[in-house]
């Protein structure tokens, strides 16, 4: 049944009309036009659709929009823009850490969650944090380097 649902998406309050069972990913992509959150499997197995809900990583492919009503949702669009990139986005480009790039939105979200709770992760900690995220092109080492690079950059910026 269609109802009005309030969300806070990338810091902005939005109101959408949808069935509360609608997967969050469909609301983000089709109602709000935020195409950065990517459908990979619909099974919570690949991490492509990761978003942050009140700071925690959630699979948008299965989360019913009703379950996140009133909560703060961050998508990859909320991280940065070409003019104001997030250090993680800058680092992915600097390391050229992508081939097809389809997994990158979810990985950026997973990495953001990691750096929010651990500003100085080891390579093993980054790998553990991203273990849910699948990459079929084999860009893992470059992604690990990019996350470490972003973390270093953010630490420097914080102490500057």
């Amino acid at each position, binding site marked *: 049944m269609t109802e009005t649902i309030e969300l806070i998406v990338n810091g902005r309050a939005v109101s959408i009309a949808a*069935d509360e*069972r*609608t*997967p969050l990913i*469909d609301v983000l*992509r*089709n109602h709000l*036009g935020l*195409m*950065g959150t*990517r*459908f*990979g*499997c*619909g*099974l919570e*197995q*690949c991490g*492509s659709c990761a978003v942050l809900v009140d700071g925690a990583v959630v699979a948008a492919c299965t989360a019913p929009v009703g379950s996140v009503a009133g909560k703060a949702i961050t998508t*990859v*669009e909320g991280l*940065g*823009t*070409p003019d104001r*990139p997030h250090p993680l*986005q800058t680092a*992915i*480009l600097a390391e*050229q850490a*992508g*081939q*097809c*790039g*389809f*997994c*990158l939105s979810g990985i*950026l979200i997973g990495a953001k969650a990691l750096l929010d709770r651990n500003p100085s992760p080891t390579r*093993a900690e*980054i*790998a*553990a944090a*991203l*273990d849910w*995220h*699948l*990459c*079929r*092109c*084999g*860009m*893992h*080492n*470059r*992604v*690990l380097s990019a996350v470490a690079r972003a973390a270093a950059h953010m630490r420097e910026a914080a102490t500057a």
Partner: protein
Amino acid sequence: MIPNTLPQSLIDNPRLDRWIGFEPGGRVRVATGKVEIGQGVLTALAQIAAEELDLPLARVALVSGDTDAAPDERYTAGSLSIEVSGSSLRLVCAETRVLFLARLAERLGCPMTELSVADGAFLRRGAPTGEGYWSLAAEVDLAREATGAAPCKPFGQYRLVGQSEQRVDLPAKVFGAPFLHDMRLPGMLHARILRQPCAGARLVALDEVAIRRAAQGPIEIVRLHDFVAFVSEDETAVANAAKAAPTHAVWEGVREIAAAEQEAASLRSLSSIDRVVGPAPSPKPGARVHAATYSRPYHAHAAIAPSAAIATFRDGRLTVWMHGQGPHPLRYGLARALDLDIAAVTVKHAFGPGVYGHNGADDVALDAALIATRMPGRAIRVQWRREEEFAFEPVASAMLVALRAELDDAGRPTDWTAEIWSGTHRGRSGPLHGANLLACEALPDPPLPPEPADVPDAGGGGAIRNAQPLYNVGRARILHHLIARTPVRTSSMRGLGALANVFALEGFMDELAALAGADPLAYRLALLTDPRAIRVIERAASLAGWERRPAGGAGRGMGLGFARYKTWSTYAAVVAEVEVEETVRLTRVWCAADAGLVINPDGARNQLEGGIIQAASFVLKEQVRLGGAGIASLDWESYPILRFSEIPEVEIALIEAPEEPATGVGEAALGPTAGAIGNAVAHALGARIRDLPLTRERIMAAVLGAGA
């Protein structure tokens, strides 16, 4: 008359203006039939074009994979984009440059030798003439055939080629919505498919009421014989419908596949088309012989997201957006499947999840086109479900590779036989291969199964790819058994037969070295004469510190693998280091590659790295499971791939050989990686596993067998 020494793409598309044009706004349109499928090819091709034209890279506007606007270069496959499209663009741009300078020389009444180009500006004796490509564009007719006669720049003068330019496609993938999956056209409808479980199955009942209820939103049901689609403005509704539909459909004529058919060993019992490549076998009586049989299972492309396509049918014209390897061949396939005039079909490529061969991307395009022709005027977007992609994409054929060598007194091969059982590695649609698009099976008068055929040997072969050793092994032959009908559809995947053949060949080389009491590295080097081959192997061994290779059998191992892809393309040598207990932990990989002239070194490294990780995943984890009506591994739990926590450190050295022709790197590292890991695991265990993947069960069996 075009001399046939031109690259194939230029023979097929001889007119210069098909490739290049100077557009208003100071951009040069450079068109390619090759497409960006994750490999970074557009960046490299732009570098080649800008180099020969002496233009800044930012001036190049690439047009890729549009059947109206770009040359027909068939498939983006076989690591040939740089070799074929790159060399075509190089000739086209060099010729264009000469035509412009000739026109300027005519106008200025000076010899051409006085003219040069710097950053797009035309100079005479080094001084600006005030002219450039755009000011002269109206005076130079590019509607002419390429001759290929214009001199190209010598590599010593390159300023862009050889530089690690950043990929042009990547920023949009980090910030934006660059994928076909993200396209939204006005009035677009979403669709999902109820798939025919297998060829020949007939839909005898469909509970449309139950499906509409499950959809939780309005949907249309489009039914064409045994092809069923759910269509709506509401993507959630069609996804719900498609998820529920299989339980509300009754099919007849659904086959049952036994799980045993998923094993490569079952190939031997299937009927095959047999041939001998090379001299007939002539076993020498009393010769010392070593023989062993290796295998790989069926492997899935398993792109990170399911395939999608968008189609519109307006005023009798079909336009399709796709993300596969061959927009032009797909155009022919769609025209044939839909009985449309080829002139009424346009296919455009857009970015998608990584393409490693012939996956579901072509098939979903026909799905979208079929619905579009039934709903003229509306844009139709079809996205496959994850389960659908795993179940219905063509897979890489399982392969069985039996090797036999006769040995001299020193343990060196004098006679070599590779006997190979495999399904086809070419299952394409298009003018060359017939319309082999999945939904055709569900329509009236389904096509007859195509005559079994593999990739021609002249193209590197399919099942026999890299079965021919580069080592001096005496007389060598291949006995090729092309399996006429495999239990599931097989087609091309990254490297084709090279993964299995190099895994087998390189494993067997280690076996022969052990029989000869020789170090595997020294044994190989003694059987090679090609200096480029020797150089990459020595370089990989030196990177890895081969001399610190541990004693084998104690759970730590180091192994080597080598191949020259297709026997004429890129050389790659890989050393792998593993720790083995119950499972394999791949700790480090070193790779040296010689790809001749490298256009973009970081792009080349990126491709090699990706190939190494993907091969490691195939070798350590992957096997398509069969059962029920076909493929039974339908999610990432039943088809696991290598994860972040399992990734080895990788170090890559590119050998500098700029005077050698550029060869592709996308597929070169896969076989050598498989060989290196197989050999490292055998070294660690003191016992060899010859069947992929190298699972816990096989490790335990090998350890027990070695101890028995």
